[in-house]
């Protein structure tokens, strides 16, 4: 078997035990590649556990800029005996296995079609360190040093990263340099060169490397959120924690040191959304962040927000369901739950960001939309975007951008005698004016309730009054269509009757798959949906194609269902492509699925059109 040979285009996977301190060493490995100007996509695959269970870190190096998971492993760094067999099995033929050879293993534990790189890491550590924790932590740095030698990461780049990492603990800098060097020297001495190589490039550009949760939290801060109420749940916890950190940095009154924000860790998700609804009712921008189980608990309040028309923002960082499901694995399986949350006839705007840059943009936009539409707006992240660092375009904010507070009747307007009906559709867009408590001594007060009422907020159970209100809420949802970010179209190079719809974290894998399919002669017009309710452009796209694949990371093709129901689309036209095993969908998977189905489509050949 010929060893794999590749420059700036390969996959390295680290198999570790969680709690062993490997995360920061692995992170440094990924970042050093970025600093050499080569794009990486790195993903943590971890258990719902703090110490002792298997965890993986997959680094895709791609000068071409493919940031989705590719599938397969070219270099496995097998540091976890528990998962040895599956780790060895996952290596591509001709790939490399790097392992700790201190304890000899029988030949039967290896494969004949891979290259084995054994380095006695434990022995090296035991000789160099006497402290048990040091032995464990520096082992990680030593293997990074060895890998750096093997694939050609510049020592200078790693040393800079170590200086940055330990800026506040300079004493740790030299010992880490030493460990790196130890690894390099051992690899130079004991291992043969391998076919995977790094070469300095300019392919990263000005892009940044950030977790979606942190970017979404920045979006909330720039979007003017002042109240955050939350309850810890993976994978959304780091969003609230990032918001806390960002606010500590940027939202403190410079003169008094007081907080221009209020963050409450509530007793559960119900209280979290209750606090958000109370704050939204009272005119503060408020949000909660949670995952599927939390959305389940919030249903009643989301219905209240819909019917009583109170702005609220929920960041749903989706994970594998149902029930406790796969709490540390990724899925896009809350689409229907969020779109139709609560009892009775309800529907809610959703935003579907593709990467951290859109987490920031949509995170800020969600608050404008919630105020303009006076309802709950969901921002649908998932674990893959939320908890992994992604390479994305820099975050931007226009100097003159103002927060859009929507229709709030002021003291002056009330004083001037402007007619105030809390649920009165004065503009024909379904959105009524609201007042904030305390605005005027004698005008504008009203009673907010989840029960039926007339346009002047007076309790009413009369059928026509109820129906008129429900129809107005539909008009408001129609208004929402024009405010939701439009879908992004990627037309095929050739005219084709086939299309594909995708969204969220599937995007990078989809783009790679489109490229591969095109090389195979399969042409697809692609449309990335960015929100719900769907704009007419989504339905026009479907109308314009014979077959439209809908690629998602859930079992039940939830976005497809939503499109079918809301657009009254013939189900036969929408072909689901579903990857939902909990690991981020790969380009290879999408390509294989679409190719297979294209072969099965018994239609006449695509007519060739002169270009």
């Amino acid at each position, binding site marked *: 078997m010929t060893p794999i040979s590749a420059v700036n285009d390969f996959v390295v996977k680290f198999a570790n035990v969680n709690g062993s301190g490997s995360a920061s060493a692995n992170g440094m490995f990924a970042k050093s590649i970025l600093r050499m100007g080569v794009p990486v996509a790195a993903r943590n695959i971890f258990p719902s556990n703090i110490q002792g269970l298997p965890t993986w870190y997959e680094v895709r190096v791609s000068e071409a800029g493919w940031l989705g998971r590719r599938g397969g492993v070219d270099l496995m760094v097998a540091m976890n005996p528990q998962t040895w067999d599956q780790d060895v099995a996952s290596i591509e033929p001709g790939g490399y296995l790097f392992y700790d050879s201190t304890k000899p293993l029988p030949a039967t534990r290896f494969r004949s079609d891979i290259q084995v790189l054994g380095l006695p890491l434990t022995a090296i550590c035991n000789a160099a360190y006497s402290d048990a924790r040091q032995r464990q932590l520096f082992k990680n740095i030593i293997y990074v040093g060895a890998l750096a030698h093997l694939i050609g990461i510049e020592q200078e780049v790693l040393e800079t990263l170590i200086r940055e990492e330990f800026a506040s603990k300079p004493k740790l800098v030299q010992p880490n340099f030493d460990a790196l060097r130890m690894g390099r020297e051992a690899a130079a001495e004991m291992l043969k060169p391998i076919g995977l190589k790094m070469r300095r490039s300019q392919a990263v550009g000005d892009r940044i490397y950030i977790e979606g949760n942190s970017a979404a939290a920045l979006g909330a*801060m720039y979007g003017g959120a002042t109240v955050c109420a939350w309850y810890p749940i993976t994978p959304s916890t780091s969003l609230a924690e990032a918001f806390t950190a960002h606010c500590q940095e940027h939202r403190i009154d410079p003169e008094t040191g007081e907080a221009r924000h209020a963050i409450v860790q509530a007793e559960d998700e119900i209280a979290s959304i209750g606090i958000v609804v109370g704050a939204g009712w009272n005119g503060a921008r408020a949000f909660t962040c949670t995952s599927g189980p939390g959305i389940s608990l919030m249903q009643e309040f989301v219905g209240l927000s819909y019917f009583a028309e109170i702005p609220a923002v929920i960041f749903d960082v989706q994970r594998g369901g149902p029930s406790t499901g796969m709490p540390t694995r990724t899925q896009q399986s809350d689409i229907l739950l969020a779109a139709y949350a609560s009892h009775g006839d309800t529907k809610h705007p959703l935003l579907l960001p593709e990467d951290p840059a859109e987490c920031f943009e949509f995170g800020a936009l969600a608050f404008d939309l919630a105020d303009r539409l006076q309802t709950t707006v969901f921002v649908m992240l998932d674990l893959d975007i939320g908890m992994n660092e992604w390479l994305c375009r820099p975050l931007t904010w226009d100097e003159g951008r103002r927060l859009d507070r929507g229709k709030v009747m002021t003291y002056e307007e009330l004083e001037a005698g402007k007619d105030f009906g809390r649920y009165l559709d004065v503009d024909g867009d379904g959105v009524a004016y609201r007042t904030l408590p305390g605005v005027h*001594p004698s005008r504008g*007060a009203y009673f907010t309730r989840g029960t039926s009422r007339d346009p002047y907020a007076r309790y009413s159970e009369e059928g026509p009054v109820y129906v008129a209100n429900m129809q107005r809420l539909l008009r408001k949802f129609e208004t929402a269509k024009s405010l939701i970010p439009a879908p992004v179209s990627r037309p095929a190079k050739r005219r084709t009757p086939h299309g594909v719809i995708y969204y969220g974290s599937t995007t990078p894998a989809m783009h790679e798959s489109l490229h591969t399919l095109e090389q195979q002669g399969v042409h697809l017009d692609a449309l990335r949906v960015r929100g719900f309710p769907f704009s007419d452009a989504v339905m026009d796209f479907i109308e314009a194609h014979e077959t439209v694949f809908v690629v998602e990371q859930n079992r039940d093709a939830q976005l497809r269902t939503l499109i079918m129901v809301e657009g009254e689309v013939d189900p036969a036209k929408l072909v689901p492509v579903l990857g939902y095993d909990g690991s981020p969908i790969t380009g290879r998977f999408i390509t294989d699925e679409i190719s297979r189905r294209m072969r099965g489509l018994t239609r006449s050949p695509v007519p060739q059109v002169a270009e």
Partner: protein
Amino acid sequence: MTYITKPRLHHPLLAPNALGFTRRDYEGKVSTLCAGCGHDSISAAIIQAAYELDLPPHRLAKLSGIGCSSKTPDYFLGNSHGFNAVHGRMPSVLTGASLANRELIYLGVSGDGDSASIGLGQFAHSVRRGVNMTYIVENNGVYGLTKGQFSATSDPGSKSKRGVVNHDQAIDLVGLALQLGASFVARSFSGDKDQLTPLIKAAISHKGAAFIDVISPCVQFNNHVGSTKSFDYVREHNAALNRLDFIEPREEITVDYAPGEVEIVRQHDGSILKLRKLSAEYDPTDRISAMGHLQLHQARGEVVTGLLYVDPDAKDLHDHLGTVQKPLNQLGDAELIPGPAALAAINDSLR
């Protein structure tokens, strides 16, 4: 019925308060509760308290959950914003509202089903966070709107109207509030407006979580022999600790009492709580002994009423969070958005 409009004609002898409002200006819609319901007396006490405090009605927000008691905010303070939220979840909504604008007064009205059953968790957590609020539970020991099921505050041994005996232990909200760190705790009786009104005034003036448990008999489903929440039972077993006179900051206190008979507590806003002691040994600023006293007398079947506990220097949630004095809902773009330059620096730190 709410669709009946109250006549706006005012009695010429109605006296205006310092703001020029009469008592009628603090009223709401016509109550839809049963004739004789204890809850209506509580609404009347709230109206009286707001009138006597010279409260601008729009500076108070009234919030409630679901149930008979939670309907009442529609029947008082018609010029205040009101929010009839979700069953058992008023405390979280009130917490959010309070975070958004610390300058308003927040009055939470709830019932025993709303706060002791479905909403026990939210009751507990809003109290332990020290949300600046007046939290009134209109406690009748029964589910009225669904026609007479026991609630979690029904005493063991008490009998329903249909003759069923309750065997479950009662949740004592006052005891819980004390344990959870409420900084103002009182119990009263809807049939004793003279006791209740000054308690509400003191609670509204209090900074921190103020809780008042008001026994409020349900004339329809829990006012019979065998009930421990009937008018007759509460009157017979009422063990009042003190009578409160609430004195506003601007009023002068006249010392006209013998030592040991009256206790004076000065709250953070300067208001004075003048307590005429009915139980000589009782010290309402001692939380631990308050809990002991309560347990002892409850075990004897007595209904202890009055101001049970007050911490006049309590801190509230905003103090704990260190939030700015300006209400969060009034912060402008410049105070909220760090701007493009800060974002450029953030980008730089992520490369």
